């Protein structure tokens, strides 16, 4: 079940493990690089961003696989792709995506999340809206609270 930009939506893409990239497919990055036309790319969360840029910035969708929900490398990869390298397409999290952790992903630049079912998709949407603000800056809100909010004592 896909949540994109805060809503449950039908997924126009099909993610494939091996096959060569074709329009409408999200293919492994190396396959995508050979025939990027109309296709998206996926990478593992531990992939070095330096091996992906600048080519990957042209993909309409980049999907990052979280091998384990508690593996935070995908967060840094997302933050670098979106923040440092200015990726503008859909940044999608898939794999072991825990609804409660989508908020971290969202703040690190992801805007799409593949959840196991509708219920978890709804929980994820709620989780992303639960905390009204945060201390430090992020890709989503680059300014830390101390630069935005009159904090007072």
């Amino acid at each position, binding site marked *: 079940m896909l949540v994109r930009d805060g809503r449950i939506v039908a997924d126009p893409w099909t993610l494939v493990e091996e096959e060569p990239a074709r329009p409408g497919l999200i293919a492994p990055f190396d396959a995508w690089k050979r025939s990027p036309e109309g296709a998206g790319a996926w990478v593992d969360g531990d992939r*070095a961003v330096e091996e992906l840029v600048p080519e990957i910035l042209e993909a309409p969708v980049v999907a990052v696989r979280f091998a384990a*929900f*508690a*593996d*935070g*490398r995908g*967060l*840094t990869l997302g*933050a670098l792709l979106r923040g*440092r390298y200015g990726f503008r397409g859909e940044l999608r999290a898939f794999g072991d995506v*825990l609804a*409660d*952790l989508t908020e*971290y992903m969202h*703040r*690190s630049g992801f805007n799409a999340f593949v959840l196991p079912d509708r*219920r978890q998709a709804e*929980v994820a949407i709620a*989780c992303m809206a*639960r*905390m*009204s*603000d*945060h*201390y*430090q*800056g*992020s*890709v*989503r809100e*680059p*300014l*830390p*609270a*101390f*630069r935005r*909010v009159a*904090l*007072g*004592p």
Partner: protein
Amino acid sequence: MYQYSAFDQRFVEERVEQYRDQTRRFLSGELSDDAFQQLRLRNGLYIQRLAPMLRIAVPYGLLSATQLRAIAAITRDYDRGYGHLSTRQNVQINWPELTDVPDILERLAEVQMHCIQTSGSCIRNVTTDQFAGVAEDEIVDARPYCEIIRQWSTYHPEFDWLPRKFKIAVNGAESDRAATHVHDIGIRVRRGDDGAPLFDFLVGGGLGRTPVIGSLIREGLPEEHLLSYLEAILRVYNRYGRRDNKYKARIKILVRAMTPETFRERVDAEWAHLKDGPSTLPATEVRRIRACFAPPAYEDLADQPALLARQRLQDPAFNTWMRHNVAPHKRAGYAVVTLSTKATGVPPGDVTDEQMDAVADWSERFGFGEVRISHEQNLVLPDVPQRDLRTLFDLAREAMLGQANAGLLTDMICCPGGDFCALANAKSIPVAEAIQRRFDDYDYLHDLGPLDINISGCMNACGHHHVGHIGILGVDKRGEEFYQISVGGNQAEDASLGRILGPSFGRAEVPDVVEKILDVYLERRFEGEAFLHTVRRIGIEPFKERVYSAENGRPRSSTQAVTRLSARDTQPRAARSARAG
């Protein structure tokens, strides 16, 4: 001390509601054990051998009287009327019901407290010198920087799911009372020629099964770059730290594998992108936080040498307490008092609700309502007028908090060990108690002088045994508990790791071995030479020889000691000890 802004208050309240929802979804079967485990850990809740344990964050060990009373009340209402001071300056409670935890968190939020990030693979409670703000040898008050780091590290979008736990300590005094050499990041604050604070970064120190002294990777960083530089370190660690083996996942392993030089280059390359970015600390923000730590309304008092000399002469007990538990204050007429939790027969760091209430009262009567927790698991009253020391001593003694042993042998650091901790190989509290019983002769103790004995029940080293002057480590040998002894460790500014003497000993032998080590010291020391310095001068050989010598046989295995220990193990108090983890 720091007062929550409306922003802080809303944050912790929303976090409580978030956790309440997570607990509800776990109980309804919607969240798996694995998922809920990680979520509860980030709210300080462990589930171990016998029951849950909730670790309450005490940011940099600083508490108000109100907060301490709230903890006391929580231990009464939800627990068994006592808490445990941890070596990371936090408070642990031992028997909360899983279903009560959201309510406990709500009670904590009412007094500006929480359990956020007190466990799990994330940035933990930032620690500092328990005398910060009042120490005579202070260069820069580290507390405002700790608070700035606390806010920055709370619920960080990128660094809450690290390879392993991550501990930061900040020290701003001449003496290093924050153990900065053995933290994932140790920060030392000093002043530049123009008086502006400068930050030195030690990275990759740590204890556990691979003890390492941290490497200095950056000197003299100006204040405005504090957070962006921390971000650079954390980002390098999050990307490259090992995740395939939890025993090799701490940053110390990464720094060692990369070499400190390469690690520094990676950090610098990352920092080049972050430097002068949005995380740059404006002077106005530092001023805002620093204002919360402004000195309290001290009276204009004079030092009281004559009064104290008279009182000390009248009562030798008061005299020794003054010598060991009372430290100089930077204001004339005041003193800093350490209330030792290390009474014989009580697990080190355990404090009852009545004791907490009493300390809260004293902090108001003899100070400004502020209490500290030290990483030696003691309580500190930071602003006691010298004229009141005698009265405080009497009250403390009556409450079993007046042991005159701060910094001495019986003031041991000790993890909860195998009585409770699921990780432990061996018990640690009964060992501490056996040593306390063996050495309860105060004259002997005071003659020995400063001596840190640190005890860990396993190589995860929660009792910091590597940096004990004498370190004791519980090991498991074919299902039996044994103890490995090391000497020469030190946690202060000239930090060093202890060296293991040799094969391990049975539990009942440990007090004898300690006694032999001390005999060697007493025979070989120069006048006024501390234990650590004697070890450094003569090496470990003489100690080794004595504890393993054939002439003395293996240390006598006293049947009496065994009996006493077994009896002790069945006492309820032993079963009430906390866990670390």
